[in-house]
């Protein structure tokens, strides 16, 4: 019953999306108020029915309805309720439903929040474009991946949610990531609406900026959560693996980063507007591409969803339609886009242009590295593999100039400037960063290239951001610094924190694999690890061997740590559960290896001490927060003035 209700809700959502993508759009074309006024109601209805479908699926999971195939495959009687809830989006079908729900949510938010700040025809076009995207995803869900399919009679018990996904980080990782992915559809919608209306100019860009910033902030958060998850769940202490699916989320992030910067130029100076439109199209298209790569099984990856060529074809066709028509429209309309003011070589435009060059090239390189195996195979050039070394080397090369240039950007003037004026206030920061970096690295015993580079680069970014703040000290004192600038400073300083973290983790990680017998001690870097025993423990749906450690610093006990080797009942997968003691400056990390086969009860155990790894995610969190704060800048949410003025003019003329 509930499954059928969910199914019907989805179909109704599809009907409303179809209406939304056609009728109000025609209204906007004909300037028909009545038809345009339909859009907000359609958006609300679309959201309500999508939510109903999603709630139905969640209910099916929570109530153990194993007559639904999706539930039978991804859940069982032993799974605790919060994982059953998370299992709603743990499968391919469910995650598509989540995707549609997010899209419906963004549409609702745009229709509510931008109602007064956008001219009606424009808002209508934006919503219609997003409705069209929703049609594609709803059709995809209903035709190839229906989450409500029945199996009669249902099995008495289900199988299991992939144990890798049974984890708190996994409950929140997909929703955040999708918020970001799907959020770029707003920027896409604005760009297409701008092209359709033939009005790609500053106003358009200003309206879309807060939405782009929000999407970008969510994407940053989602990627960060994924990295954190991989760190503690996969059991080998890395924080980024250049896995194809990680890359699939990283490419839109890089393009999104370029986009928020190019939007700043286009809004303030009207320069490179066509480029901004193109980036908006590209950021959303690569989000779609990411979906395609994950779902079609073209590339193999840890995100092993059930893959299916039919689904691959469908997404590819959908992507071809969406991006293909967007780019065709671009080709016809972009030449008509007004050209902005020119600028000198030394200017803020140049700084932001350089940002765009580096981030776009990086996105291109990551994309090429990810698709390389396909290209090579296609060309028949033989069998070559691309590993993390390619990405790592390429990335350091491209991001070093970015780190050096970031503090210069905000301090430079629009139009024209001279280098001396920009650099002068930063000389102190520069000197302090270099000297301070060297001293800190030496004091920490980390006197190697990576750590030193990390400290100098990080301090340069943080101090550079502070010195920008110093120059605005009047506004800071009166608490009137615009939120856009607060967000920017926070994000740039966040990059600094991140850089320090990477430099330290990559150079100063202590790793040791050793044989531990119960009673053994390991002394390292001021810590003593003492293994009491290895015991059997039982969880709701697994049994495990658990190592029980006490960790001392000097004589003081600092932590009890209990790494596990879990055997899940269903599927009989073995999982390594790492024991972690997080710290601002050090993480202690213990992973249980294998029991020794010599009958002594000894285990091989891996101990890591990871310095500053929290700084990596801390920096990323600052980036995301900075994005959100900037998005809340009042400037973006002002009532649409031209309309107000027109209204005033009309009333003024009426009596005459």
């Amino acid at each position, binding site marked *: 019953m509930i499954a059928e209700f969910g199914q019907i809700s989805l179909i109704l959502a599809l009907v409303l999306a179809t209406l939304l993508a056609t009728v109000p759009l025609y209204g906007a074309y004909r300037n028909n108020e009545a038809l345009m006024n339909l859009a907000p109601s359609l958006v609300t209805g679309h959201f309500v029915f999508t939510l109903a479908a999603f709630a139905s699926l969640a209910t099916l999971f929570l109530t153990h309805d194993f007559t639904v195939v999706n539930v039978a495959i991804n859940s069982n009687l032993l799974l605790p309720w919060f994982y059953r809830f998370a299992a709603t989006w743990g499968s391919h079908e469910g995650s598509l439903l989540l995707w549609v729900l997010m899209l419906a949510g963004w549409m609702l938010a745009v229709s509510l929040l931008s109602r007064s700040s956008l001219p009606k025809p424009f808002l209508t076009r934006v919503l219609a474009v997003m409705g069209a995207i929703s049609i594609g995803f709803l059709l995809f869900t209903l035709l190839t991946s229906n989450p409500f399919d029945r199996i009669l009679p249902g099995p008495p018990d289900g199988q299991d949610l992939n144990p890798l996904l049974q984890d708190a980080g996994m409950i929140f990782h997909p929703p955040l990531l999708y918020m970001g992915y799907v959020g770029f559809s707003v920027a896409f919608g604005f760009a297409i609406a701008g092209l359709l209306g033939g009005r790609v100019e500053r106003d358009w860009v200003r309206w879309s900026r807060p939405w782009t910033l929000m999407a970008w902030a969510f994407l940053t958060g989602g990627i960060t959560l994924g990295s954190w998850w991989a760190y503690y769940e996969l059991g080998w202490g890395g924080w980024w693996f250049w896995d194809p699916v990680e890359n699939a989320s990283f490419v839109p992030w890089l393009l999104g980063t370029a986009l928020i910067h190019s939007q700043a130029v286009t809004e303030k100076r009207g320069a490179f507007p066509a480029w901004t439109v193109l980036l908006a199209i590209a950021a959303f298209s690569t989000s779609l591409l990411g979906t395609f790569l994950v779902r079609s099984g073209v590339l193999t990856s840890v995100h092993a969803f059930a893959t299916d*060529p039919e689904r691959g074809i469908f997404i590819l066709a959908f992507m071809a339609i969406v991006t293909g028509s967007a780019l065709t429209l671009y080709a016809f309309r972009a030449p008509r886009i007004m050209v902005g003011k020119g600028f000198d070589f030394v200017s803020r435009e140049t700084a932001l242009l350089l940002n765009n060059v580096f981030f776009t090239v990086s996105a291109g390189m990551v994309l090429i590295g990810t698709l390389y195996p*396909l290209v090579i195979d296609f060309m028949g050039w033989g069998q070559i*593999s691309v590993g993390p070394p390619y990405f790592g080397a390429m990335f350091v090369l491209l991001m070093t100039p970015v780190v050096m240039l970031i503090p210069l950007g905000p301090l430079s003037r629009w139009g024209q400037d001279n280098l001396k004026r920009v650099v002068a206030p930063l000389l102190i920061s520069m000197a302090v960063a270099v000297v301070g970096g060297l001293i800190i690295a030496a004091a920490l015993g980390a006197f190697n290239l990576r750590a030193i580079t990390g400290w100098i680069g990080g301090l340069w970014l943080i101090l550079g951001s502070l010195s920008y703040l110093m120059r605005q000290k009047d506004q800071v004192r009166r608490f009137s610094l615009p939120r856009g600038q607060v967000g920017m400073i926070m994000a740039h300083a966040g990059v600094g924190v991140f850089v320090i973290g990477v430099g330290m983790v990559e150079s100063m990680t202590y790793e040791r694999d050793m044989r531990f017998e119960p009673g053994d001690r390991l002394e390292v870097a001021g810590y003593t690890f003492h293994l009491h025993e290895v015991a059997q423990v039982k969880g709701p749906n697994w049994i495990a061997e658990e190592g029980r450690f006490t960790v001392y610093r000097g004589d003081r006990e600092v932590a009890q740590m209990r790494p596990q080797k879990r055997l899940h009942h269903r599927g009989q997968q073995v999982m390594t559960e790492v024991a972690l003691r997080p710290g601002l400056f050090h993480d202690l990390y213990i992973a249980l290896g294998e029991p020794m086969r010599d009958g002594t009860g000894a285990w091989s155990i891996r101990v890591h001490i990871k310095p500053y790894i929290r700084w990596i995610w801390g920096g990323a969190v600052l980036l995301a927060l900075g994005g959100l704060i900037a998005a809340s800048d009042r400037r973006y949410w002002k009532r649409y003035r031209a309309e107000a003025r027109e209204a005033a003019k009309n009333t003024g003329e009426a009596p005459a």
Partner: protein
Amino acid sequence: MIKMLVPLGVFVGLVVLLLISLPTAEQRRQVSSPLVGREVPTFSLPGLHDPGVSRSTVDFRGQPFILNVWGSWCFSCRVEHPYIERLGREAGVPLVGFNWRDEREDALEWLDQFGDAWTVHMVDVEGRAAIDLGVYGAPETFLIDHRGIIRHKHIGPVDEEIYADLIERIEQMRVEAGT
């Protein structure tokens, strides 16, 4: 106008590439490789635990065996590892590890941490033997029969379904070999 068509052109190229890769991806998964049905190339490589000893594909003639390509740098190898362990325990034929483009130290650490269910490992640091073998990426799993013919190749991580399929094929090969 012409300049503005460039992005569209690039995109069309990308779609064509993906379109072509889609069915071949399936082929790679199922029919796998032109080497299936041919004799496994003969090569000698140093062992992993015992670098002094040279290991060859000929060592296993007369019985079926599994050849599993892996590397400590390979993310998906970590994912399929539980199933590889089960293969080692339950398949009843030698499970040969083909350690590809790896550092010896990293590989040994990896085995220490996750478990070493393989009968023996051979090490291909430069990846030359891997090219002869038509290795497309790690992980890959080859089934080779008692006459030394490659009977099956699976690309990508082994999961529950693939595992069952592999075990079935191995049973078949064991019957043929009469072991």
